[in-house]
């Protein structure tokens, strides 16, 4: 079952199942190479509930929580 990447813990990875909608954020993430089927990893979170670092195949980005949530992933079993 696909969940928003924000549900993953730091260091957990998954396969990108889809991007939610066609908002500007989704357009930007597609242009940065976040496409379904790729591996993504949730990394560190900035203090005070700040942005989340997401490690993708072709980009390492910091995303605010509500923005990161457009990335739906199938969690990889550990």
């Amino acid at each position, binding site marked *: 079952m696909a969940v928003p990447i924000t549900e993953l813990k730091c260091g957990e990875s998954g396969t990108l199942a889809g991007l939610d909608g066609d908002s500007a954020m989704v357009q930007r*993430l597609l242009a*940065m190479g976040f496409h379904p089927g790729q591996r993504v990893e949730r990394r560190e979170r*900035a203090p*005070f509930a700040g942005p989340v670092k997401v490690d993708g195949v072709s980009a390492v980005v910091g995303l605010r929580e509500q923005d990161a949530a457009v990335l739906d992933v199938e969690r990889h079993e550990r």
Partner: protein
Amino acid sequence: MSADPSAAAAVAEGALRVVLIGQPNTGKTSLFNRLTGLRQRVGNYPGVTVERKEGIGRAGDVAFTLVDLPGTYSLNALSMDEHISVRALAGHPDIGPVPDVIVCVVDAAKLQRSLLPAFQAAALGRPMVLALNFFDEAEALGWRFDLPLLEERLGIPVVPTVGHRGEGIGALKEAVLRASRQRMALTAPEWPPAVQEAVRMLETRLDYIEDTDVRRFRAQRLLFDTAIRAEDDLAGSPTQRHEAVEAARSCVMRGGYAPATAEPVLLFPVIERMLAGALEKSGTASRRVTEGLDQVLLHPVAGLLVFALLMFGVFQAVYSWAGPLMEGIESLTAALQEAAGGVLEGMPVVQSLVVDGVIAGLGGVAVFLPQILILTLLVALLEDCGYLARAAFLVDKALGWCGLSGKSFVPLMSGYACAIPAIMATRTIEDPKARLTTILAAPLMSCSARLPVYVLMIGAFIEPRHGSTVAALVLLAMHLLGPVVALPLAWLFQKRILKAPAPPFVLELPPYRRPTLRDLSWRLWHRAHRFLTDAGTIILAMSVVIWALLYFPRPAQLEDTLRAAWSVPADMDPEEAEEAFQAHLDSAYLEQSYLGRAGRWMQPVFDPAGFDWKITVALLASFPAREVVISTLGIIYQLGGGEDEASEGLRRRLRQELWTEGPRAGHPVFTVPVAAAVMVFFAICMQCGATVAMITAEASWRWAWGAFAAMTALAWLGAVLTYQILGRVAG
């Protein structure tokens, strides 16, 4: 499409127009610097805070104009700067003709995604070159490129480069000429029938464009760019245009694609196919250094600690290291003034113009250079090594609520030292709206030039009466006033004035890299050059105008009248007496100068803040630089212009000053509420000609004077509220 001979002619005349496109963080700027050297013109595109960079490059005996377009993740423009790149490619009249050659810069280690803009620009049919930048990093990851195969498939020259080390520059120049001469264009991708049909529908509305390639490019942009309204380009009435775009987009949707995302969704498989077999990723990609560093530098505790230390270091450097250099420039200015004053003795008007207008103005420009150079160097170091993005990541939460991002932190913090380098440091913010907001917010931070005013007022009125603890707290409060006023204003400004939606905030965290000396020195040179030529000239001009307003009119009989009425106290030696007379005379001249008259005339405006006409004159005279208020007060109080904030004479004089007229006659002018009102006024106002000049250079004169007016009004309001409230509480 133009035929070969015209392209050849363009080459021969040296009018070959080459543009650099590419995604952000692909090292485009380093390549631009290497290709053009110091032959650059940097400015802004009309009406926006988007940097326009053009330069002249030379390949063999051929000269070409090179334009560095703003970085774009996709030509599907989501922000102002991306839209400018699109318009530049399409040959918009405000920006320039359609380029002859497009150089697409890609990050070799992120090849798939950074090829997107190249494939979007393919519709233009213009000669193109692909620069595989950071080629060394891709090789270090264990990637192997089959360059001949890649060239064959794409049909354009592919050049490996390492921009910041200058590798591959010669080959890149050669490739530009080759692509231009042989008209090597990237083959435009084949769209599914629904998209082809939609593009055709829009092309018929653009048939006034003769170049069929440009027409197709524009039609595609109209179809896919759902965030930008560019329908005005179409023929027909507004309703017809809107309907045409809507009809074309429905056609795409019937084909099963969302217009906003159809391009990347359709192009990525095309790009993957192109790369299959030409790029071999052997071994596990090792980003271990970057990941390890991030575990520490993004850590909630360790990361914040490093951040705090680094920021403290940057602030100390700008605040303290620049000090001795600035003092050096000031004493040099003083020495020049003295020398020029001696030479021009006997020509009082010229002497004063040169000494107090021109040399003082030049000194006033040069004095900013140490801070600019130090801050530019440190920010460039942090940016080039990759830390600046991490710093923005850590503090994004603190600024995100008011529409800014973590990227505004360093400029705003630098504003506490000086607004001038702070405004320059906003160049690291890509989003033009966020950049403009930060430029306008930075001058509200309490810069070091405000400190003398606080020291004078606190030292004279608050410390003696309320002790040093209260004095320290008041000083702290004055420094907190900046963000307390600026951040809600930034929020309001983003929400109410700049209504266009903010582009999505994605903070790219590039791998850590070693900065190169050459890139750093280039940046220092360009910033200093830009400051001196753009802001510097405005500062100098303002300095001369203010001088004239303080000097004229200057009736010679005033001196005679005053001397006749002047009685030398018996116990004074002649030299001292002459000095006292000169101070008296200076004060009288200032009082009847144009600016002095304006101050008297404007005093009623400042009356609700408790200011008398002398404070008002000092306030007007301090327009070029707020610290001037202290020497002006010195002149008005007949102590001479050499007074500083620690001078006991000036403090005593302030305490003795009484109202001579009006309802408060006989009462002291300076009370605690008045002193506090003066501090609040200076904390909020933009009494700084250099800042006005800087905002003019970086944004526009409209923003500069608008900000000046708004901050002055706000400062007045703050001063009136302070005086009235404290007056009630204390009285």
